[in-house]
């Protein structure tokens, strides 16, 4: 028998193995949840105010700094936003190279979360540092961790000049171009790591971690080639919207104790990210990915929040398969003429699928090309309401089973990590007036 008190508090001020700072406060009285607050405790840097008065062409490299992890997602989303505002249409070569940079990000970012943050939970370890080098599988996973992250880094570096805050991509095209031979050389490495990704997929598919919430609405930017960078907004309710209209459908929710605002979809609890994407449009995954992972893809659509990790692993395989196909299809990389930028009074909206879900940038630009106003909606904000709700549901079930406090804390942290939240992104802006 467990000796579990009727009354206790949980105060997690610094949740480990996530991007940035989040905290959780829970008050249990008579074995019931009296109060539960999940909050993002990362301090704001006010990017949406900071871009006011800056030339639109300078904004992408600034907003990339919102996040060191998914910087290239903000960078490419921002470039797209300015291009939309100014009516600039990038070339097909530019779009392919951007996809390669982005695929590199997806590999590295998902790998960071899966190997370094999520995997230790599956092996009952505190950290990847505690993995046993004498255990063949654990040793192999350690090697995989660094190899897979490195492949993602190299892809982004070759095409973007750097894996974080890539200097080559710019409005209308590229400032410098990758060497085709370097790209061709990477192609075999991409193919060679596929077995490692199957190993990862299998591990997360076999995991017994489970928490299913039936009434979530999944949202994502869907394209026929699952590109992350283009498409239209789709929801699990069947709605299809052009990306420009995203802000009409997600509503900001004030969470007074959090440094970030939450969002709902037409008043309902919503989720974005890998799980949402695979649930909504797994049919658009690369043909090779689909053929080789059919038994796992059959698990989707899934309402098990922990399947977000499995979905991330499947997406790594998809971007590896699309990248090697893109590289095969490139015979030359030409130094294209720069598309001229003509400032005009305009509004631009750019939406992409960041690694953690739908990312929205909107800028209002004046005649001189100066940003007057900006808005940014990030994935973790959109998931924040669901995160708190799911923690509540998990806690209730654990309390019914007389789970000891230490175990409760561990289980809750596992759930929070399953979302792969990014607090640095979530907290940069809050436009609500506090009273």
């Amino acid at each position: 028998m467990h000796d579990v008190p009727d009354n206790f508090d949980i105060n997690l001020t610094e949740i480990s193995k996530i991007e940035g700072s989040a905290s959780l406060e829970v008050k249990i009285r008579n074995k019931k949840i009296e109060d539960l607050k999940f909050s993002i405790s990362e301090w704001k840097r006010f990017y949406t105010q900071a871009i006011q008065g800056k030339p639109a062409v300078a904004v992408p490299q600034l907003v990339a700094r919102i996040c060191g992890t998914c910087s290239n997602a903000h960078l490419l989303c921002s470039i797209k936003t300015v291009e939309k505002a100014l009516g600039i249409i990038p070339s097909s070569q530019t779009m392919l190279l951007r996809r390669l940079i982005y695929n590199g990000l997806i590999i590295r970012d998902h790998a960071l979360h899966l190997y370094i943050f999520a995997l230790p939970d599956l092996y009952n370890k505190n950290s990847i540092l505690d993995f046993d080098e004498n255990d063949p599988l654990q040793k192999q996973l350690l090697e995989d961790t660094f190899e897979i992250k490195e492949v993602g880094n190299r892809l982004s570096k070759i095409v973007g000049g750097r894996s974080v805050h890539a200097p080559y991509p710019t409005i209308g095209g590229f400032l410098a171009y990758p060497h085709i031979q370097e790209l061709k050389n990477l192609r075999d490495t991409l193919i060679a790591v596929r077995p490692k990704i199957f190993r990862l997929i299998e591990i997360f598919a076999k995991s017994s971690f489970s928490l299913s919430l039936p009434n979530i609405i999944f949202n994502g930017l869907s394209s026929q080639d699952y590109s992350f960078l283009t498409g239209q907004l789709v929801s699990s309710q069947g709605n299809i919207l052009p990306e420009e209209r995203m802000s009409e459908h997600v509503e900001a929710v004030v969470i007074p104790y959090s440094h970030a605002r939450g969002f709902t979809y037409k008043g309902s609890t919503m989720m974005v990210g890998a799980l949402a994407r695979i649930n909504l449009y797994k049919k658009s995954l690369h043909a090779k990915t689909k053929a080789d992972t059919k038994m796992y893809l059959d698990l989707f659509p899934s309402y098990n929040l922990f399947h977000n990790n499995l979905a991330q692993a499947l997406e790594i395989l998809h971007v590896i398969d699309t990248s090697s196909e893109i590289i095969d299809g490139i015979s030359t990389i030409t130094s294209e003429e720069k598309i001229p930028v003509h400032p005009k009074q305009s509004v631009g909206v750019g939406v992409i699928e960041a690694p953690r879900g739908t990312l929205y940038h909107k800028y209002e630009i004046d005649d001189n090309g100066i940003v007057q106003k900006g808005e940014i909606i990030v994935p973790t904000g959109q998931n924040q309401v669901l995160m708190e709700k799911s923690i509540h549901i998990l806690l209730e079930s654990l309390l019914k089973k007389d789970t000891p406090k230490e175990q409760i804390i561990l289980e809750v942290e596992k759930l929070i990590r399953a979302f792969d939240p990014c607090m640095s992104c979530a907290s940069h802006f809050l436009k609500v007036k506090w009273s």
Partner: protein
Amino acid sequence: MKKIDFVHAKILRKDSYSELQPMDLAFVEGAITSDTQEVKLKKIREKSKKLVAIGACAVIGSPSNQRNFFNPKQHEQIQSILEKFKYKDKVLKLSDIVVVDENVPGCPMDEVGFLNILNKYINSQLVYPEP
């Protein structure tokens, strides 16, 4: 032979200590925007023999300190948030508050510079700075 012992690394694992432990080297990222961060930075300084500022925000404060340069209109938009969550008046770089032994500048930080500092200290006998 094991040369590095990760004393605190929230990004890698759940801390088993309730208090900050003594460290040979402390790597600190980011600028200081609140009193709680300032208190924590001072504690880290107290517990570490050498303190290394990592990346542009820690070394020069930017771009995290962009609110320091806001015009009155921009400032008005954020004022209520600054008050509610008790932000500092100005965002500070680490060396505004504590003695910084080494800097790794850049955004992202310069990887070679980071490795050079690590190699410089990895085999040395470090001592706490004079109070």
